[in-house]
């Protein structure tokens, strides 16, 4: 900070300081204002920053007694005065009772630059951080000295680092000296934040241009060879746009020219009705060209000749080659790192999608694996769970509480629905698996239409509580919404729970026994009917809970189940029937595959899905029993 000139200033309040230089405050001029700022900074009084901001915003007034106040305009054309020292209100006056001080643009710029400095010197680190952030949002060359000054006084390591980085960002763009800029750019090397890359990319912006000879002073990025880096027609069009050559008439222009020159049903000696091929039109044009009616046609050779006289190039907007070289190098240095982080981000996305697929499919895998029953209504159980969540949310307004209630309720509702369906329908069809598929499909369309009749066709909201609404960001490239993290952990919890049930409980033992050999299990006193019922209920219940999660992530509609059903089948089939880990592997494969394909062609998710399904069809060719296949006689056929 600059040393203070006037040592005698021992003013106790801001008002005192202002009164000392009241002439300057009342009539601020570009030449005088630095003195005011010096005094203020020397006094180091609280409230200085607010005063300066108000000053710059033209919100400072001088009362009739000569005292200065901050002011706030009220709706009724009056002003509320605020004491600059205490920040307390000092009464209300009419606009005409005080004189409003209106510093001009030059003065305001001075004030703003100094304001940054004041804020950056604030004793409260939080305010310093905030000041830095606001400076970073509106980068300006004027900030450089202030930040440099603040950096010298700063003792907080974190804030120092931030200041240095902001200084680099500013210097890279605004500094006048090449060395300083290159130095600053060096400082940004390896920085993967969006800001840093934006600054570097800005430095590397180019414009397309052409000239007869390559200009000496231009900072050339690329020379475009006509025919290779730029098509001949495009290059010629550039010249034509600049009025350097006559425009090349296209097919339409030729036709219009001919049309304008029809004489007695003839053009250039050719009857109009014969002009339905390009050759004849060209011949007619040539004829008109020969008798001087039309401008000569531009041939390829003409274009080549014209284009050959010029060089076409891309030049950096930044004239300093040292800067652009350094910027390019700095950007290149981060490329690998960025690639890695993008891959990490993709992996997170894939993991999140996989956990959704897993949640949607695991219930199906249980029923399919244990009972060999294809439940086409599985998607509708997901939907049922989601609508349960929605109904509960309308009853309990607190989102967290309603979620806590909704999860078990959804399980109970869909468990009951599953058990009912098993008892009423599926039980009778165990020997006819293909017909189970059809019967459950009948249930599926009935349930879907029922949901439409009850809840309407428009999507219903299922809002996640606030603590799930944000996102977890690791850096500018890798971030994931909290909800997806939640779904991931939910999938994990289900995985562990299922493994526990299947491997550590009596029910699990019986389920495994029925899976492997229903006849033998029955003869050992296990009631397969009961096991089937419970298994089906469990699978359906999980679908319901998954529905609550998916409803928060997507939207609750009567068709939401149908959107997941085919993917769920794929997950189960690819993973291998009858294995929890198989479903996990299937979900992982399909999730990462879909994200991977989307990455190559991010604009077209439909294409990604198409390719994914094709891949699955091919995959089943090579592993008809899925990734994790049961072997031997137990697998059956």
């Amino acid at each position, binding site marked *: 900070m600059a040393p203070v000139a006037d040592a005698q200033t021992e003013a106790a309040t801001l008002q005192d300081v202002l009164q000392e230089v009241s002439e300057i405050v009342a009539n601020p001029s570009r030449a005088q204002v630095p003195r005011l700022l010096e005094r203020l900074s020397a006094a180091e009084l609280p409230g200085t920053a607010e005063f300066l901001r108000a000053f710059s915003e033209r919100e400072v007034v001088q009362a009739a007694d000569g005292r200065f106040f901050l002011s706030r305009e009220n709706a009724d054309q009056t002003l509320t005065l605020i004491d600059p020292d205490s920040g307390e209100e000092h009464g209300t006056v009419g606009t005409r009772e005080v004189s409003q001080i209106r510093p001009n643009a030059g003065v305001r710029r001075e004030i703003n630059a100094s304001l940054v400095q004041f804020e950056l010197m604030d004793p409260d680190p939080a305010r310093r951080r905030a000041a830095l952030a606001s400076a970073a949002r509106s980068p300006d060359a004027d900030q450089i000295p202030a930040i440099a000054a603040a950096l010298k006084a700063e003792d907080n390591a974190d804030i120092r680092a931030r200041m240095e980085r902001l200084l680099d960002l500013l210097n890279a763009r605004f500094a006048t000296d090449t060395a300083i800029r290159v130095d600053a750019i060096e400082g940004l090397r390896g920085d993967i934040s969006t800001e840093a890359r934006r600054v570097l990319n800005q430095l590397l912006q180019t414009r397309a241009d052409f000239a007869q000879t390559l200009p000496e002073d231009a900072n050339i990025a690329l020379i475009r060879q006509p025919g290779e880096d730029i098509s001949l027609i495009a290059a010629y069009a550039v010249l034509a746009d600049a009025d350097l050559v006559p425009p090349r008439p296209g097919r339409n222009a030729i036709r219009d020219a001919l049309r304008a020159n029809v004489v007695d049903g003839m053009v250039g000696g050719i009857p109009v009705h014969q002009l*339905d091929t390009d050759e004849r039109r060209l011949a007619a044009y040539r004829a008109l060209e020969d008798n001087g009616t039309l401008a000569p046609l531009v041939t390829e050779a003409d274009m080549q000749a014209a284009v050959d006289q010029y060089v076409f190039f891309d030049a950096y907007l930044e004239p300093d080659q040292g800067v652009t070289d350094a910027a390019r190098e700095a950007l290149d240095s981060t490329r690998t790192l960025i690639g890695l982080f993008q891959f990490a981000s993709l992996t997170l996305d894939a993991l999140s999608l996989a956990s959704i697929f897993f949640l949607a499919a695991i219930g199906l895998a249980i029923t399919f694996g244990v009972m060999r029953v294809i439940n086409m209504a599985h998607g509708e159980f997901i939907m049922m769970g989601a609508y349960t969540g929605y109904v509960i949310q309308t009853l309990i307004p607190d989102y967290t509480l309603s979620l806590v209630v909704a999860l078990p309720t959804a399980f109970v509702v869909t468990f009951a629905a599953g058990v009912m369906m098993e008892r009423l329908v599926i039980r009778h069809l165990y020997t006819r698996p293909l017909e189970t598929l059809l019967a459950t*499909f009948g*249930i599926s*369309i009935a349930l*879907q239409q029922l949901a439409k009749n009850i809840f309407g066709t428009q999507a219903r909201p299922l809002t996640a509580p606030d603590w799930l609404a944000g996102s977890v960001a690791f850096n500018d490239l890798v971030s994931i919404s909290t909800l997806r993290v939640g779904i991931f952990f939910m999938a994990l919890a289900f995985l562990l729970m299922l493994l526990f049930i299947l491997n550590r409980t009596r029910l699990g033992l019986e389920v495994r026994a029925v899976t492997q050999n229903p006849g033998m299990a029955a003869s050992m006193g296990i009631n397969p009917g009961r096991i089937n019922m419970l298994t089906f209920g469990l699978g359906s219940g999980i679908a319901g809970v998954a529905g609550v999660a998916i409803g928060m992530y997507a939207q609750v509609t009567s068709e939401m189940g149908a959107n997941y059903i*085919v993917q769920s089948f794929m997950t189960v089939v690819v993973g291998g029937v009858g294995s929890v880990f198989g479903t996990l592997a299937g979900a992982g494969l399909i999730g990462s595959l879909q994200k991977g394909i989307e990455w190559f062609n991010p604009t077209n998710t439909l294409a990604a899905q*198409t390719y994914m*399904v094709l891949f699955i*069809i091919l995959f089943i060719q090579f592993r008809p029993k899925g990734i994790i296949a049961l072997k031997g006689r137990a697998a059956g056929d």
Partner: protein
Amino acid sequence: MVLTTTDTTARPPRKSLLRENPSVLWFMGLLGLFTLIVSLLSEATGIGVISTSLVKILGMTLCLCLVALAMDVVWGYCGILSLGHFAFFGLGGYAIGMSLMYARTEIVVRDNLARGTIPPTETEVLDAVAAQIFGVVGSSELPLIWSFANSLPLQLAMVVLVPGLLALVFGWLAFRSRVTGVYLSILTQAMTLALSLYLFQNDTGLRGNNGLSGLQNIPGFLDVPQSVISMWFFWASALALGLGYLACAWVVSGKFGAVIQAIRDNEARVRFLGYNVEGYKLFVFTLTAVISGIAGALYYPQAGIINPAEVAPIASIYLAVWVAIGGRGRLYGAVIGAAAVSLLSSWLTGGGAPNIDLGFYRIVWTDWWLVLLGLGFVAVTLFFPKGIGGLFDYLVRKQS
């Protein structure tokens, strides 16, 4: 047993297809009678009791019966629950739709361009046609798959070739790896899903979500009234259904029919008899796909529009529902199922049926039809696995 076709080889040496399958004669007679009655009652060729739109609905229903026949052969007789045959139906529709849409657009475009002083070149016509057709999806170039659209014979060949080749390739892959049962069903559903997703894309050259439209206008006959054109298509559909029934009856009777039914019941055993099961399945799958394609090519000009939603997996499941309700493993069952369910569906959802006021609740059929169909279907599967066709068996047995 007079009406069943399943039990044919029981009789001594084969004499003729019709002798063996009395139901074929019955069916042909009824179909002929139906066609005659509709013709006599229609606006164009009769006394005008049946409106043109109803003629179209009836013609479309005949096409649905034809695709149901194909489904019955592949599922009811050969045991392959294909959830992809409506996709083949849609492909046939797209193939004919491309030709119709192209030809009609070309006529309109030529008309427009001819108003200019100078006649258009072929390139200009082509460009204008492309811009006209693909303007809605923001493109103005004719995709490669439209190469044959300007030739009706080639595009008609596509009606057969596209579904046939797709079925051949897909079937070869699936059967070769011995995917059977529900796995195979899911795999065919995946194929259907992939196809519909492909069609839904704007940049795959079939106008994405918009589909192909204006198909009811037949180039060359633009001044023929729709009432007459609808009769032509009705007759063509009836003829196709008749021929299709004959072809299917021929396939499912005799030794070939015995082999495919044996494959349905125990395919491993058929292998040990020395039959190449995969070859038979592939043959049946491909043949029925071709029949479905032809049915689709007759259906969509009557519907006037085709879009990817028609090809969605759900449509193929509905097809299975029709066949199951009608009765699998008997050809007339498939026809009855398709006709009954699709006509009932269009009656109830088209607002033809009166709503029922219960006082406390008003039953609106458009809302409740699907619930009814779903639950009815469950009931059929549970209690009448033989479908409506099973009733005939029952009646016939009671008589004898």
